[in-house]
């Protein structure tokens, strides 16, 4: 939601007719103007206009605070007062650090951790400095010392595997320079891809916590604050793993801590969108308590040494099977030189039997093909039906009980480790970062 906002400067500008009109009238955005038409006169501050909107209109913010769009046909503009494009931001005051508190790194990747609203123009500006962050969430000051950096500024849906590499490097740097825990603020759309990628790339002695917001931080009801505060608590905890920390329910009262490889965005808009799939959450954060799920085994803080292995293969395809799928889709990837393909099959891990020929062709071309299930819940088993057995014969690799997204990310990473198909197969079937569980519990469905 509202992700467009921090790109507002890029997306906003006047088009041809309006621009000509404004330039001719010698006024620019931020000026107080009057616009006079035959039957009405408006006075207000000239604002920018969204690029997708119709040309021939200008936007004014009236004294009452309302914005309106005005058709410039037969109108005359007069400058009342020159205005400046307002500068937004606070002095970057140094915040005192305390020896008694843990040092937590906060890395932002583009989700707005906090925003400032300029009520004069109504514009929303992203805020990335530590000062801004702490101003929006003063409770954080009681919890830790902070090192905050904006790694990049992209929409979650525009995330690319290259960014995982960069993020893992940056996190590793922070940990080696003494960070006691890392919080990554991320847009929610592809958050679970990133959490899986970091899980494979980093063996970590400290918690790496990825969080986000379903409701943007410029609104008083944002879920960003609770998610961020609880993430910092988890970053201080004993859980030495890559995890995701997000709202447990629609209430602003608790968050769940999910394992980075076993979590998925399951709702387009709810705050409790992230759910553990085929497993239970590691812990619940409620008030000041982190209640660990006692059935869960995890690496404790300090148990592992920091190890970064961020070699990955970018040329990996992702194909979803559907009634009517044709060989072309597989063949295209083979022809284009893809090194691996993740298939999101139906049911236990199936594709139509007429696709098997293409799979065999891929095998001959030494392309790794991994099968996962679009059921999301449950485990791939290709022995039950004849088509499945044909796939096994074609050397297709089972994605076990991984989510398709995790299986895809893992395939990218595994192909970065080896190009020998037998090694690829072995690594894919081996549990690296909690992504594969050995058996399926009755409990883990739709919760």
């Amino acid at each position, binding site marked *: 939601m509202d992700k467009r906002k921090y790109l507002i400067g890029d997306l906003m500008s006047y088009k041809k007719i309006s621009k000509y009109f404004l330039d001719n009238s010698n006024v620019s955005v931020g000026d107080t103007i009057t616009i006079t038409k035959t039957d009405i006169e408006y006075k207000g501050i000239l604002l920018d206009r969204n690029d997708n909107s119709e040309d021939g209109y200008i936007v004014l913010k009236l004294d009452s605070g309302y914005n309106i769009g005005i058709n410039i046909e037969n109108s005359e503009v007069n400058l009342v007062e020159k205005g400046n494009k307002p500068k937004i931001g606070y002095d970057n005051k140094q915040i005192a650090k305390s020896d008694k508190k843990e040092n937590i790194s906060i890395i932002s990747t583009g989700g707005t951790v906090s925003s400032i609203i300029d*009520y004069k123009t109504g514009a929303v500006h992203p805020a990335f400095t530590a000062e801004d962050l702490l101003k929006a969430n003063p409770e954080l000051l009681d919890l830790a010392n902070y090192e905050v950096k904006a790694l990049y500024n992209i929409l979650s849906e525009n995330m690319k595997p290259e960014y995982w590499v960069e993020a893992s490097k940056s996190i590793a740097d922070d940990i080696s320079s003494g960070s006691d825990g890392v919080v990554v603020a991320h847009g929610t759309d592809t958050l679970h891809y990133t959490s899986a990628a970091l899980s494979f790339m980093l063996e970590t002695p400290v918690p790496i916590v990825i969080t986000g917001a379903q409701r943007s931080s410029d609104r*008083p009801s944002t879920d960003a604050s609770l998610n961020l505060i609880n993430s910092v608590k988890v970053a201080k905890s004993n859980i030495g793993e890559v995890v995701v920390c997000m709202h447990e329910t629609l*209430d602003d009262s608790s968050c769940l801590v999910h394992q980075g490889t076993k979590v998925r965005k399951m709702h387009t808009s709810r705050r409790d969108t992230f759910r553990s799939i085929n497993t239970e959450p590691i812990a619940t954060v409620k008030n000041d308590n982190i209640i660990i799920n006692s059935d869960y085994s995890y690496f404790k803080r300090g148990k592992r040494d920091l190890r970064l292995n961020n070699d990955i293969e970018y040329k990996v395809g992702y194909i979803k099977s559907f009634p009517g799928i044709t060989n072309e889709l597989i063949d295209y990837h083979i022809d284009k030189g893809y090194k691996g393909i993740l298939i999101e099959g139906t049911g236990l891990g199936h594709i139509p039997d007429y696709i098997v020929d293409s799979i065999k062709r891929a095998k001959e071309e030494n392309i790794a093909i991994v099968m996962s299930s679009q059921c999301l819940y449950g485990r791939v088993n290709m022995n039950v039906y004849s088509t499945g057995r044909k796939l096994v014969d074609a050397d297709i690799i089972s994605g076990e009980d991984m989510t398709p997204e995790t299986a895809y990310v893992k395939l990218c990473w595994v192909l970065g480790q080896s190009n020998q198909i037998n090694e690829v197969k072995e690594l894919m079937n081996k549990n690296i970062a909690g992504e594969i569980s050995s058996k399926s519990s009755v409990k883990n469905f739709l919760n």
Partner: protein
Amino acid sequence: MDFDKLGLKMGLEIHQQLNTMHKLFCPCKTELIDKDYDNIIKRNLRPTQSELGEIDRAAYAESIQKLNFKYESYNSETCLVECDDEPPYSLNEEALEISIIIGELLNMHIVDEFHTMRKQVIDGSNTGGFQRTGLVATNGHLDTPYGKVIIESLGLEEDACRRIETTDDFTEFRLDRLGIPLAEITTDPSMHHPEQVREVAYMIGQILRSTNVKRGLGTIRQDVNISIEKGARVEIKGVQNLDLFNKIVENEIQRQLTLIEIKDELKSRNAKVIEEIYDLDEIFENTESKILSSAESIKGIVLKGFGGLIGKEVQKGRRFGTEIASYAKKRGVSGIFHTDELPAYGISSNEVEKLKKSLNLDENDAIIIVAHNEKIAISALEEVKKRANLAFKGVLEETRKALEDGNTEYMRPLPTANRMYLETDIPSFKIEKKLVKSIKDNLPELPDVKKERIINEYKLSEDLANQIVKKGICDDFECIIPSLKLDSITIASVLAYDIPEIKREGHNTYNLDNNKLISIFSLVENGKISKDAISNLMIKVCESPNSNIEKIAEDNNLTLLSEDKVIEIISEIVKNNAKMIEERKMSAMGPLMGMSMKKLKGKADGSLVNKVVKDEIQKQLNT
């Protein structure tokens, strides 16, 4: 009161719920729900950054503390949009069109493009922490007998959640009302006489009622802002009863004048608010006051030079102390004690003396006492100090609540300028000139015009026409009437009086659609039933809406008797009263008519009964 001399200025703000099929930004119905909720959602709101300015952690913590909310939601009657868990859907165009109609009726100028804004509201009444609102029209006017009044703006916005309960820890709201479209009409603050405000409110009400708006309690809310030259602007919320309006204005002026007097007196006395908060537990150790003895702690402050002024009446039955108390109450105490009203409430004169002595006070000083747990008592007294210090300013800019007795009560300080920013989840909406023109060409008839017209057109009495218009049934009336030859007065009276009456008796009159009414009236027209039987037949039709109406009439014995049968019955009555006829001759007509009508009510036409009774008496006399 000489309003002109006082420099009285008033403006009106009217909020009216629109009667749309769906809410403003989601597909839920625009109806309140009275059944038990399905889910409770717990939320916090936090002030956004620019409202905070500098980091003041204490103030911040305090503001957060008060922002715990619970929301009652439903599985089917409300949706994720009200929960703030789904982005809003597109603007409800039906609501926008009704707003444009209202704007045109108020002679306003419609904007070219409607932009939805977010107006920050963090009292919990909106789950998002803001109200969605947009400007539809500006620059309107109304001509009143007191002169022209400018209608500054017409907004289209979301109604807020319904407040269900407030406790020390949280406020609970219901999501049903959130998102119902509201038209917000604001006049300029140029009205000088309460009668004029009343007139304008009445006129706007008439205009609103000619469009598709909700009716009934709570669907229209009127706020008035009032100022006098030496006073300050005060907004009075929720003026339900316009008849109280003059009183509210006079009481408010009185309050402002008294506060100015108090200010002058305080200054001349060199009055002062003492910072220290005193522990008074010891002094009231053995008190007989139940409130004091049961409290965890008793605390007080000294207001030097305030003596006698705390007890001063600012409005009838409300003292300056009441104003102070309403600030303290915001911190969770149920009230305050002040020395101007003591001894009382079980506090003895002895204790008061002891108190004054130990705090070293003279008779010009006052003490405010609060009894509660330590934390709340202190925070309440801080509010008291704040209010007492503000007394040196005279009248404060405040939002106040209208009370039923014509007084007002403090709610909160007047908000500063609206803090609005763009709602980025909703695209701007271009209002086509064509749409505005077609609306302008088809504006609804205003109630007064409509009334005059139907009086002339259908020969209705003023009262009957008034009822038809007021009850909003004119369209039904005018839809029924062309298919019938029956006289318009009968039809109008049934619609205006009989149907509401059987509805009051508990019958489901929603079953009486226009087609059914036409069938019923046709039976009268064709001589099948009498006018007197209409009510009874309607009741039966309400009970079995799917049955044939003529059959219902027959089955329930509501049809008219044949003339022969009528003659037979009346002739029987006449024979039985032969003696009376012999004695009273034709003047027996009255009593016999009564007896016949009683027996034949609803089963024979009155004029027929009249004729037959007359004939039968004649016959009897002739024998």
